């Protein structure tokens, strides 16, 4: 891919100077334009941006210094180089004080001009790279899905803020879909460790042996398939944060190993014998009652206390209904932007139903609903019929499994005109089971 050419605007009332510099810079591969006075230069700057401006200090009408001030007022930040035929310390100092990049006396030594422009061009490139890196960092810090004005969320956000600066272990609790991982990201992104990685491990998704290899890494040949040495997540999180999701699911053996690592910050790769030290912060999350598990003896008490230095509990969405309109608007903005669509509104009836809904799946469920409604909707507003509850005649109660089973059995029996054998076959159960269910739900054929 071709790199964008650095652009230069030469401003000088002498045609020979403009032409000389134009030819010199064109030969060097820069994109060059010229203006014979400050007024023309400002018009050109309104139309497009230039990376570098090389301007004579003495020009009829507006001088180079005044032009520089006007450019700054336009909120443009080109590299500004002042040229003059009459060197004077006062003007040089003033130009530099006003933010000029450099000050040169005509005529230049060709080598000085080459160096000056090469340095300015490097400065342009570095500035662009710096901006791009800063944008990336801001994106990481901007955990903008954390939306909430409710007291519950304000408390959570204030806890995040206060805990972020320390290196203490944190346990984040909350129902599924409340945004535990987002909170972990927010803590990391606002901590001094933010320039190091945040490594997430979903403990519940891995078997004991896989989790061990995932966390500690393994040496080549440690087990079948281990054809290369592999760094573990603790090692990868060196300097940063490790987020252990679903910590309540780990086995007693892993609990012991984890406790040891947390105490010493050292570990050995699976199949290895070299001790590895890593400096990481631990953030855990669970939707289980860890304290209850400790009381029942299924979770080690010592590990619990080591992890539970700070506990952040995220309230379920039903306990912060006032956040729903904010979240809805946030998700509309997020998905309309990602789908390159115009922003849409929400029908008042739809919003009312959203606020009355229980949301067992919490914010995640609301987000999925909004995304789906934008995809299937009319592109202008989210209507009640675009929401699942709108189609199912909006019920705020959640049906139990038994109720669903009963309804399904009745529909199958009706479909096969109460022929037990055919209905049982369709339901993939034996006749006896179906008879037991009919008896359990006290179902009767209606003639």
């Amino acid at each position, binding site marked *: 891919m071709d790199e964008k050419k650095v652009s230069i605007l030469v401003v000088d009332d002498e045609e020979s100077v403009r032409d000389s510099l134009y*030819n010199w810079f064109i030969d060097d591969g820069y994109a060059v334009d010229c203006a014979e006075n400050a007024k023309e230069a400002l018009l050109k700057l309104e139309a497009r941006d230039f990376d570098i401006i090389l301007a004579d200090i003495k020009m009829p009408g507006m001088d180079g210094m005044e032009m520089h001030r006007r450019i700054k007022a336009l909120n443009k930040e080109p590299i500004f180089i002042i040229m003059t035929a009459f060197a004077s310390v006062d003007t040089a100092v003033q130009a530099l004080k006003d933010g000029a990049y450099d000050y040169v006396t005509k005529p230049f030594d060709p080598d000085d001009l080459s160096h000056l422009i090469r340095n300015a061009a490097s400065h342009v490139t570095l500035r662009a790279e710096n901006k791009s890196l800063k944008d990336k960092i801001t994106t990481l810090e901007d955990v903008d899905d954390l939306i909430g004005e409710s007291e519950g969320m304000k408390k959570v956000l204030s806890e995040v803020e206060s805990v972020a600066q320390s290196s203490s272990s944190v346990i984040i609790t909350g129902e599924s879909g409340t945004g535990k991982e987002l909170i972990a990201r927010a803590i990391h992104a606002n901590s001094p460790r933010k320039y190091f990685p945040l490594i997430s491990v979903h403990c519940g998704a891995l078997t004991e042996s896989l989790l061990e290899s995932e966390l500690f890494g393994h040496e080549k040949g440690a087990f079948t398939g281990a054809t290369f040495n592999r760094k573990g997540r603790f090692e990868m999180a060196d300097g940063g944060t490790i987020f252990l999701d679903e910590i309540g699911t780990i086995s007693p053996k892993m609990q012991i190993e984890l406790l040891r690592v947390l105490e010493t910050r050292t570990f050995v790769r699976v199949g290895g014998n070299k001790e590895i030290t890593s400096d990481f912060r631990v953030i855990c999350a669970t939707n289980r009652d860890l304290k209850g598990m400790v009381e029942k003896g299924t979770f080690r008490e010592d590990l619990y206390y080591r992890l539970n230095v700070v506990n952040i509990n995220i309230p379920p969405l039903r306990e912060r209904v006032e956040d729903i309109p904010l979240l809805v608007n946030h998700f509309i903005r997020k998905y309309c932007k990602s789908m390159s669509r115009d922003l849409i509104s929400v029908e008042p009836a739809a919003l009312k139903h959203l606020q009355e809904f229980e949301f067992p799946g919490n914010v995640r469920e609301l987000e999925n609903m909004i995304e789906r409604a934008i995809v299937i909707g009319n592109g202008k507003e989210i209507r009640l019929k675009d929401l699942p509850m709108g189609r199912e005649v909006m019920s705020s109660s959640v049906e139990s499994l038994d109720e669903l089973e009963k309804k399904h059995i009745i529909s199958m029996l009706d479909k096969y005109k109460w022929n037990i054998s055919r209905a049982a076959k369709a339901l993939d159960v034996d006749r006896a089971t179906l008879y037991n269910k009919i008896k359990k739900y006290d179902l009767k054929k209606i003639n």
Partner: protein
Amino acid sequence: MISCGHFDNSLMDKIATDLRLFFGFPLDIRECSLDISSFYDPGRRQYDANHILKKVAEVSDPLALKTMGLLRVDLYIPILTYIFGQSELNGKTSIASIHRLRNELYGLDPDNRLLEERFRKVIVHEMGHAFGLIHCLNPTCIMRSSTYVEDLDQKELRFCNKCRSELDKSLENY
């Protein structure tokens, strides 16, 4: 090629060979005495290259694809203290001067071989511009920008692969 400085035949032959070899066009050499006295700036004790370039263009053969003027005087353009040569990108006329390439100017012993080599490099470089080539970052490429004679000595009398390929593309248009 217009010679305005009574250069040795052997040097002219070498230059002609270079230009034929690199650019592949038939070459005509003319000796010419240009009156450039009016382009002399007594304050700078140098000659204005922009005006000389125009003058060379005026006396060049209208049928010539490109014209190269060879000089012995110290050249400047208003914004720079000196130049070795001057050419317009994709333009018809170029000039090059041997004046600043002499070792004696830098307190060193004369070296005719080195002087000729430097001059040939400046000429091929300027002609490269005339065929649309811009400066190259490759330290050994002839299209590398040279502001000191030492820079000229560092580069070779050849185009790098990238510039050669750009030049070939440009030559297809003629």
